[in-house]
């Protein structure tokens, strides 16, 4: 017993003890409460920070794909070229008809071509990736249409129908349907689809891509120099605008 409380009556002492006990409990409850607040707020802050970092990381453009020494590429007579030869700026795309990212860039490029058509030359090169099982065939379909002068129309149809034919087991029939739609000679198209020349043309594009360090699609070269993929229409537009202005 606390000696300084000795002058108190028994009842008063009991009350005092009770008061102390309540105070102690209250103190402990308060401490527990503080601890709880501390634990949960640090957990939430921790999670928030991690989420923020991950989101930032995931939206950064990947740094890979750009070789340390940028190689310059030239247009060859075998290339599929859209636009007049006197154009100021040349944009080369290494692409894969079954790649969803290429499919995303397709309307962007189409719009850009509409806007800069007279000042821009656009080159399409095949870079069918291993994991896209119909990409090679699609590339050959474009080649086969190209032999009858309809490469760009086929290019457009392939990208517009990507979601449909990519999930089919035998997309040949769809490609032949596209050819029919374009009004080309179907027998010739069929033959060209499996021809050695068609396969060679696709393969040569792929080899040339490997040589200049292409390891993802789409990869763009602006005036012969590889560029980081623009993230949207406006970024791409500004890039082309700058290139055109610096030429004049």
């Amino acid at each position, binding site marked *: 017993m606390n000696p300084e409380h000795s002058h108190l009556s028994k009842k008063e002492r009991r009350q005092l003890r009770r008061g102390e006990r309540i105070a102690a409990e209250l103190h402990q409850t308060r401490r527990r409460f503080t601890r*709880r607040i501390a*634990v*949960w707020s640090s*957990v939430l802050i921790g*999670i928030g920070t*991690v*989420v923020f970092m*991950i*989101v930032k*990381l*995931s*939206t950064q*453009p*990947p740094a*890979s*794909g750009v070789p340390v020494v940028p190689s310059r590429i030239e247009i060859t007579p075998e290339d599929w070229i859209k636009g007049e030869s006197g154009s100021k700026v040349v944009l080369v795309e290494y692409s*894969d008809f079954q*790649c*969803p*990212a*290429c499919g*995303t*860039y397709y309307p962007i490029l189409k719009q850009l071509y509409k806007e800069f058509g007279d000042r821009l030359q656009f080159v399409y090169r095949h870079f069918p*990736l*291993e*994991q*896209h*099982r119909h990409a090679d065939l699609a590339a050959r379909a474009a080649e086969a249409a190209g032999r009858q002068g309809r490469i760009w129309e086929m290019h457009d149809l392939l990208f517009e129908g990507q979601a449909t034919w990519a*999930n089919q087991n035998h997309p040949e029939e769809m490609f032949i349907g596209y050819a029919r739609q374009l009004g080309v000679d179907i027998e010739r198209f069929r033959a060209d689809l499996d021809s050695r020349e068609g396969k060679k043309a696709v393969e040569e594009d792929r080899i040339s891509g490997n040589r200049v360090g292409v*390891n*993802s*699609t*789409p*990869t763009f070269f602006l005036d012969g120099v590889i560029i980081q*993929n623009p*993230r*949207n229409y406006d970024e791409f537009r500004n890039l082309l605008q700058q290139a055109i202005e610096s030429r004049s």
Partner: protein
Amino acid sequence: MNSEISSNRPSRAVPNRIIASFLVISFIGFADATYLTAKHYSGTPLECSVFESCEKVTTSRYATVLGIPVALLGAIYYLAIFLSLIAYLDLRREGILSFTALFTIVGLLASAWFVYLQLFVIQAICPYCMVSAVASTVLFLLGMLALKKKRVSC
């Protein structure tokens, strides 16, 4: 009487390292699924790489359920597991641990389904999705281990 006491006390039978592994694994799963979710919502897939076939998996029609990306559901699942373990450590209610342990079956079944889709339907492997599948499996095993330890203690 005995069981009444143990139901409100920290269980000695479920070792701390199981709880710690639970926290670590669910957090890894959460970070992984959050990354995939962020990728999903950041809009354009920027490129298809020679090295991986993630985009094929994450852009397939199996990647969303009623318009909600599966990755987001995964992130919510892992976060729920993580937070209920924190709640268990805070409140020390055995029921929370038991429920969480049983709940890991959901993750296991979902992961089994997605691995099946990747191997046999989409025919492409997405490394990030496989990390998540491993995390779910480990969580399930930890959950069963925790339940077993608890049962022994009763």
